[in-house]
């Protein structure tokens, strides 16, 4: 197939707009670069601050280029008690929350998307109510409950709390995803002899997977980012944000910059890992 084979009506239109399209592409590139500058500049700057010597951070004006690169600031932060174990705790809690909330949330999302039943509105309102509940109001009584059941100060306690936080979101997103999958195909599969479960696994799930991946991503991130509840439910088994928050009060600026950088590095890695997965899922738009 050569360009000459393209349908005739398109050709004059494309040729006539050639220059306009090129200017448009330049404009889009410039806009993309401007957005990128805003989104990435803070990441660069906090990295710069965390990787500068403590002395150079006391000077003014600060250098905007890496002139005094040193791991001194970061090393003193990382060797502070509890920082590395807190990182591991954050990972355990995040993965545990993802698995638990998708296991519980997916069926509910599917039910909301596919069935009209008595109590549907009540259920939706219930889920929104739970999502709208500020974490402090449940963290305090939960701390009490966990103390009596021996779950206090464990990663399980935080996983349960974070799943409770993330579950309504998981249900909302998965139900929106399933609404987007045409019901006709599922019904067709059942007419041709598939059981409801087979129809779901073979027909619905493949189409819903990108959205489910997005739901899982949000779940992990919700857990990873949650500060307050984790700080209340644990003493020694702190997640990383809780650890940083609890030691923030009297800490110098250099410690705070190092903390910010330490929190953002896993975020960069995490999105980089997820990127390939997400792009293969969302490739239709971005390729």
């Amino acid at each position, binding site marked *: 197939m050569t360009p000459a084979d393209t349908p005739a009506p398109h050709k004059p239109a494309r040729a006539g707009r050639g220059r306009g399209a090129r200017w*448009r*592409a330049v404009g889009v590139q410039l806009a*993309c670069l401007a957005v990128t500058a805003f*989104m990435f500049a*803070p*990441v660069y*700057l*906090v990295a*710069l*601050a965390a990787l500068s010597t403590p002395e150079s951070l006391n000077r*003014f*004006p*600060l250098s905007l280029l890496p002139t005094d690169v040193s791991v001194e600031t970061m090393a003193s932060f990382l060797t502070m008690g509890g920082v590395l174990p807190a990182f591991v705790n954050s990972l355990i809690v995040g993965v545990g929350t993802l698995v638990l909330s998708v296991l*519980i949330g997916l*069926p*509910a999302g599917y*039910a909301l998307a596919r069935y009209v039943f*008595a109590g*549907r509105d009540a259920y*939706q*309102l*219930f*889920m*929104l*109510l739970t999502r*709208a509940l*500020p974490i*402090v*109001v*449940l963290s*305090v009584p*939960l701390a009490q409950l966990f103390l009596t059941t021996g779950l206090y100060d464990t990663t399980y306690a935080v996983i349960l709390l974070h*799943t409770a936080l993330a579950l309504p979101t998981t249900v909302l*997103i998965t139900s*929106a995803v399933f609404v*987007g999958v045409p019901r006709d195909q599922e019904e067709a599969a059942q007419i041709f002899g598939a059981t409801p479960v087979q129809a779901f696994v073979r027909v619905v799930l493949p189409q819903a997977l990108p*959205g489910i991946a*997005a739901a899982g991503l949000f779940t992990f*991130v919700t857990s990873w*980012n*949650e*500060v*307050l509840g984790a*700080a*209340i439910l644990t003493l020694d088994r702190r997640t990383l944000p809780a650890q*940083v*928050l609890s030691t923030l009060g009297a800490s110098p*600026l250099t410690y*705070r910059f190092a*903390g*910010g950088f330490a*929190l*953002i590095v896993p*975020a960069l890695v995490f*999105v*980089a890992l997820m*990127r390939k997965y997400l*792009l293969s899922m*969302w490739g239709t*738009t971005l390729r």
Partner: protein
Amino acid sequence: MTTATTTTTRRRRPPVPVLLLIPSVVFMTALFLWPLVVGIGQAFLGEDGPTLEFVRRMVDDPHFWPSVGNTLLLLVVLIPLQFAFALAMALLLRAKPRFSQVYFYLWVVPLAVSDLCAGLVWLAVFTDQGYLNSLLDLLGLPTYPWLSFASYPTMFLAVLVAELWRATSLVLVIVVAGMQSIPRDYEEAAEVFGATFWQRLRHVLLPQLRPSLQVALILRTILALQTFAVAQALTGRDFPLLVGETYQWYNLLQNPNVSAVLALVVLALSMGTAVVYLRVLRDRTSTEARP
């Protein structure tokens, strides 16, 4: 025709959705409703019966009304800005520029950033001897105490910028995921018939994006009401927000009762907006589902 439809609906027996919902209902009841009941008790039960003492203490606190005002102001300014920004970003990506994958990656990085982290990151920019003032100084411009207690507008601006930076990615991902399911044919058809960019956006793209935008709107509003660590990291208690006050009362003032009342205020605000959204959402989708 009508009999065929009724038989298919009748085949969906109620027990199936109930079975699917049971795990989540049990889980949420154990971890939400029970603590909520205890929390209400903490808020309104004193040592000798029902009391409004904790409500009074909350309202008498000089930080209370500013924190209500700040929370609502942040919400009202942030959400529209955020959606406009996310939509613009998604449209840029949909225009398929070169390096769009790199851009997408860089733009969704804040997705995995906690609000505490965002506060610390922007602290490096806005603090007195930070990078913004360094840049101004290098350019020969006067520096400014952006996070000073005396300069409310710039404190608000700093919190706003940090939140815009951090939380827009969430909206972006939802919008991009929604756009993926919209075939380009519609837009191309509209273009062939001479629709301008704005007409295509208004009448072709946005109506199809509505479900995604609704999900994003509910999520973001409720999350925005719970913002606190950004302001905490940037300004301490100089820019009080409702959840930040809850944290102050619980952690520093060791008063779970007043903190429970404050939490209920946030809960009331969240529920109010959620119910409004849900009503608007349901009405529109139900009228559109049956053309």
